[in-house]
């Protein structure tokens, strides 16, 4: 061939040189093949690695709305001012040369001057922004250099969270300043402040949450993100948080940003619609606070027909917004107050708090006596001496009664909360023989039928997805059927049941603690004629698809069990509970609201509270008596739509403290219903 003739040359040295050249080229070709074809991918990776910074983009958190789609936890837009340093490079250069002023400098002096020039340019720019939006801003020199050296590809944050007027001023001047930009970021906000704190929960800053993504990027930087810690925000965090996205920033050899490219768009979290009615919730919070700012207690309003929790109040509470904006010294002290303990949800008994029910347990006692035939004639009168004592049968037991002495039939005993009447049927229904074992069996049996000692909410399977209970719940304590021994006392001693324990149990003292949520389920069951309904807090979760309406996953209401009560029992109980509020001498009269028929039952339980002191001789813990006051109710009695539990710790009595609070809430509910009707009427008129 034309250029390989030399290989046939007779000139040996020429031939050798040609062969040598060809061999050397072959080596080059082989090495090039290895670099550019065989191992090209590894070099492409190295090239990506040094020029691309992966940034994690958190998704917008889903909203939490009330049953009328009013906002409970949503995202507001936060406006931040940033400086894009890469756009200032020519200014840096100009300023550098004007500072240098033609002087001769060595390398390190030049570097120092360059650093100074950069800081002065950016600081100057910050000053200009500061002057024009009327907010004192200072650029921290150390932080600036740190940002420059480590995160140059990211914009430099200058000011966060501008007020609307500052945004307006800023937008006017944005064109006159180089490299300054406004960024908009969603921030969690709770428009109602501390309302429903325990149900909603709170967030904590966490830039590195576990992601579900199949592809994990090795992020150089993570944009600020939050995870839910408690309440719905915590329990349904995976649904609310959505899926983070990823962005690639291409940088040049000195880390200046040159271009951006979104790899994966973040996928917003899902919206959750609650059963809460914001107006009722707000009214209930106000009503409970009317007892005093440091009231410890709870209010639950539930729909007895489907279990919807219309209000779930636990006090004292805290403002969820503070977990994002930060705490003052005082607020930290408030959070650490162990007496008030703001962390626990008293309504659902999170952290295993539970309370003796006191006289509201007489509702269950009544049903037990009526259903088992211990009371076969409710009109039969029993004489109350003003205290319970039976020298022959129970020489060691006596109990004072708050109800005055006199003759009591069932209704009167119920509305005046006569202890003697209820103890009579628990221990000796005929008044002659000791039958406390029968009383124990009946009461424990019925307490268990009401599912006391168990959590009220169970996980639900909805179209293949398991919904966890949205509340952290305590179970309280109730003895199991056939239980021989009582719970251990403070010395760890086990003792057998005695007649006195049964007498205590029938009036809601001793071997029993309950949560307000359990009492709400009980009250609802009385209201709806005997069905135990699982409380429902979450109504629906929006699908991740855009097409929300059709894809709402509705959480159905769930019946936990039917008590199969006789109609007579239900109507008698309704009558007695109505009398408790309506009658002039009823203990719950404080709850009366004109125009609504309310049935209720008061309770004032005694609870031993450790004083923190010890008996100097025996070393035993010293206790004082505290009161847990209750009022459970439902309305309207004819066709119940609301079941309500009000519980206040350290109150005076259920009738004096809790019943009026319930009355306030019912009045608020009436107003809410009226305004809804008006709106409905308005709509109808159109």
């Amino acid at each position, binding site marked *: 061939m034309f250029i390989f003739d030399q290989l046939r040359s007779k000139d040996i040295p020429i031939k050798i040189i040609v062969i040598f050249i060809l061999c050397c080229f072959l080596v*080059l070709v082989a090495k090039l093949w290895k*670099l550019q074809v065989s191992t*090209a991918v590894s*070099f492409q990776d190295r*090239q990506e690695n040094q020029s691309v910074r992966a940034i994690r983009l958190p998704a917008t958190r889903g909203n939490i709305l009330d049953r009328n789609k009013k906002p409970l936890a949503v995202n507001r837009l936060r406006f931040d001012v940033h400086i894009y340093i890469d756009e200032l490079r020519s200014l840096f250069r100009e300023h550098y040369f004007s500072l240098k002023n033609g002087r001769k400098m060595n390398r390190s002096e030049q570097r120092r001057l360059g650093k100074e020039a950069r800081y002065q340019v950016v600081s100057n720019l910050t000053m200009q922004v500061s002057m024009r939006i009327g907010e004192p801003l200072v650029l921290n020199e150390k932080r600036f250099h740190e940002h420059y050296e480590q995160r140059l590809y990211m914009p430099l944050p200058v000011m966060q969270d501008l007020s609307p007027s500052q945004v307006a001023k800023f937008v006017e001047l944005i064109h006159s300043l180089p490299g300054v930009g406004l960024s908009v970021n969603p921030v969690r906000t709770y428009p109602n402040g501390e309302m429903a704190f325990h149900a909603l929960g709170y967030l904590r800053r966490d830039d590195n949450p576990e992601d579900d993504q199949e592809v994990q990027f090795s992020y150089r930087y993570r944009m600020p993100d939050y995870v839910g810690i408690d309440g719905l925000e915590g329990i349904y965090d995976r649904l609310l948080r959505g899926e983070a996205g990823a962005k690639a920033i291409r940088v040049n050899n000195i880390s200046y940003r040159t271009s951006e490219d979104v790899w994966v768009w973040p996928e917003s979290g899902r919206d959750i619609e609650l059963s809460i009615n914001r107006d009722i919730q707000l009214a209930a919070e106000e009503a409970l606070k009317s007892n005093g700012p440091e009231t410890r207690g709870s209010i639950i309003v539930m729909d007895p027909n489907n279990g919807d929790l219309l209000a779930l109040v636990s006090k004292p509470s805290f403002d969820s917004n503070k977990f994002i904006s930060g705490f003052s010294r005082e607020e930290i002290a408030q959070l650490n107050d162990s007496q008030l303990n703001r962390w626990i949800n008293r309504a659902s008994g999170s952290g295993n708090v539970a309370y003796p029910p006191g006289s509201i347990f007489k509702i269950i006692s009544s049903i037990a006596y009526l259903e088992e035939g211990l009371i076969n004639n409710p009109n039969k009168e029993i004489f109350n001496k003003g205290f319970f004592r039976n020298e022959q049968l129970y020489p060691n037991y006596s109990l004072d009664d708050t109800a005055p002495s006199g003759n009591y039939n069932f209704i009167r005993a119920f509305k005046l909360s006569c202890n003697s009447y209820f103890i009579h049927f628990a221990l000796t229904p005929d008044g002659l023989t000791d039958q406390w074992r029968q009383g124990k069996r009946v009461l424990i049996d019925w307490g268990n039928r009401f599912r006391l000692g168990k959590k009220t909410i169970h996980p639900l399977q909805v179209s293949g997805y398991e919904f966890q209970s949205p509340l952290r719940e305590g179970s309280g304590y109730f003895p199991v059927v056939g239980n021989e021994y009582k719970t251990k006392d403070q010395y760890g001693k086990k003792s057998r049941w005695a007649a006195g324990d049964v007498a205590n149990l029938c009036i809601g003292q001793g071997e029993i603690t309950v949560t307000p949520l359990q009492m709400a389920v009980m009250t609802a069951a009385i209201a709806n004629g005997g069905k135990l309904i699982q409380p429902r807090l979450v109504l629906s979760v929006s699908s991740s698809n855009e097409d929300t309406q059709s894809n709402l996953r509705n959480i159905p209401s769930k019946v936990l069990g039917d008590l199969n009560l006789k109609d007579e029992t239900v109507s008698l109980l309704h009558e007695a509970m109505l009398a408790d509020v309506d009658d002039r001498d009823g203990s719950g009269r404080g709850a009366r609201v004109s125009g609504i028929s309310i049935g209720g039952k008061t309770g004032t339980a005694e609870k031993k509270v450790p004083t923190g002191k010890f008996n100097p001789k025996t070393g035993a813990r010293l206790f004082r008596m505290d009161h847990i006051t209750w009022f459970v109710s439902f309305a309207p009695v004819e066709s119940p739509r609301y079941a309500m539990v009000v519980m206040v710790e350290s109150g005076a009595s259920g009738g004096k403290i809790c019943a009026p609070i319930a009355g306030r809430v019912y009045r608020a509910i009436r107003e809410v219903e009226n305004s809804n009707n008006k709106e409905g009427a308005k709509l109808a008129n159109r």
Partner: protein
Amino acid sequence: MNSFLMHFRKLRVDLLLGFSLFGLMFFGSAFILSASIDQYEINALFETYFFRQVVFYFVGITFGVFFVIVDYHRLSGYAQTSYWIIILLLVLVLIPGVGEVRFGARRWFDLGVTLVQPSEFAKLAFIFALADFLTRPSDEMFMPGVFVKAIGMTALPFLLILKEPDLGSSLVFFPIGTAMMFVAGVPLRFLGKFLGFSSVLVLLVIINVLYAPADWRIPLNEYQRHRLLVYFNKDFASADATPAERKEARELQRSRTHNIRQAEISVGSGGLMGKGWGQGPQTRLGYLPKGVAHNDFIFSVISEETGFLGSMAVLSLYAILLLKGMQIADQARDRLGKLLAVGVVAMIFCHVFVNIGMHLRLMPVTGIPLPLLSYGGSSVLSSLIAIAVLQNVKLHKNSY
């Protein structure tokens, strides 16, 4: 017009040689433009590398025409004179105030319009002088005196250029000289002894650089030592260094290896097809340092943006050039023409192999340009003149 064509035919231009020449100049100008495209925002047109390179090509071709037309026998009449003139220039360039310092080396004369690097032209003058010297009866090749003289002619410019310092350029003289002596018929036992001796010398230098304690080192420039350490993948820090020294040494090593690391990434990441003209992030984003991308490291830019196929195209063009040169040498009418052609081929081959080999880590980093592709007036001019000499030898092979 007709007369021009007639004259052109008379030149008997080798079409394949012309094709490879213009192919290389096309690659050179296109990728110098790609490597320095940012310049168009700041600099005036005549200050841009691309424009200047095109001007150099034209000036080079003009000089080339002269070196084609004038019979190489007449040219070699001035061989010894030009050799000694260039030696004088190499001495002058070392004198502070006369020679210009760039990047820590005194290699240039400043002519106002452009810088001139005499070492580039020294190679040409050396080829002419040695070819002229070796064009004597082949019996004389067996005389040790002739051989020693030839070695001396090679060593003189080598030592002067080494002093600049420019180790890479200076070392090129030996392969050129050896190839020419080999073709001229210098006995193999002389050449063998010489090659053996210089290999041992090089080996000793390398061993000294890599392993000798500080007091025993030959006085090599710091950066030259570092380049050799980088090539042999050795730690900069000595074994008994303190942690602080070690850290400093590691940093220095990182910065010293930066260019070659980035060059390797550029070449490798080009892949089979490359990223397209002007699209290589290594070049565009400045990872491949802007100061060297358009000259010594132009092959990185080409292979990043055109991939394996582009690299093969460049290698093929050089292969055509070199093999064509050898063909011309083979068919030359006399020893002088043959030696001139072999000298030129050896010179171009050394540049190509050392420069591309450096990108592929086959060779240590040296400041040797890629003929016709790298930016630089002196290099372009001397390359074009050298190729003109090839054409000259071809043109006059039959004109007795």
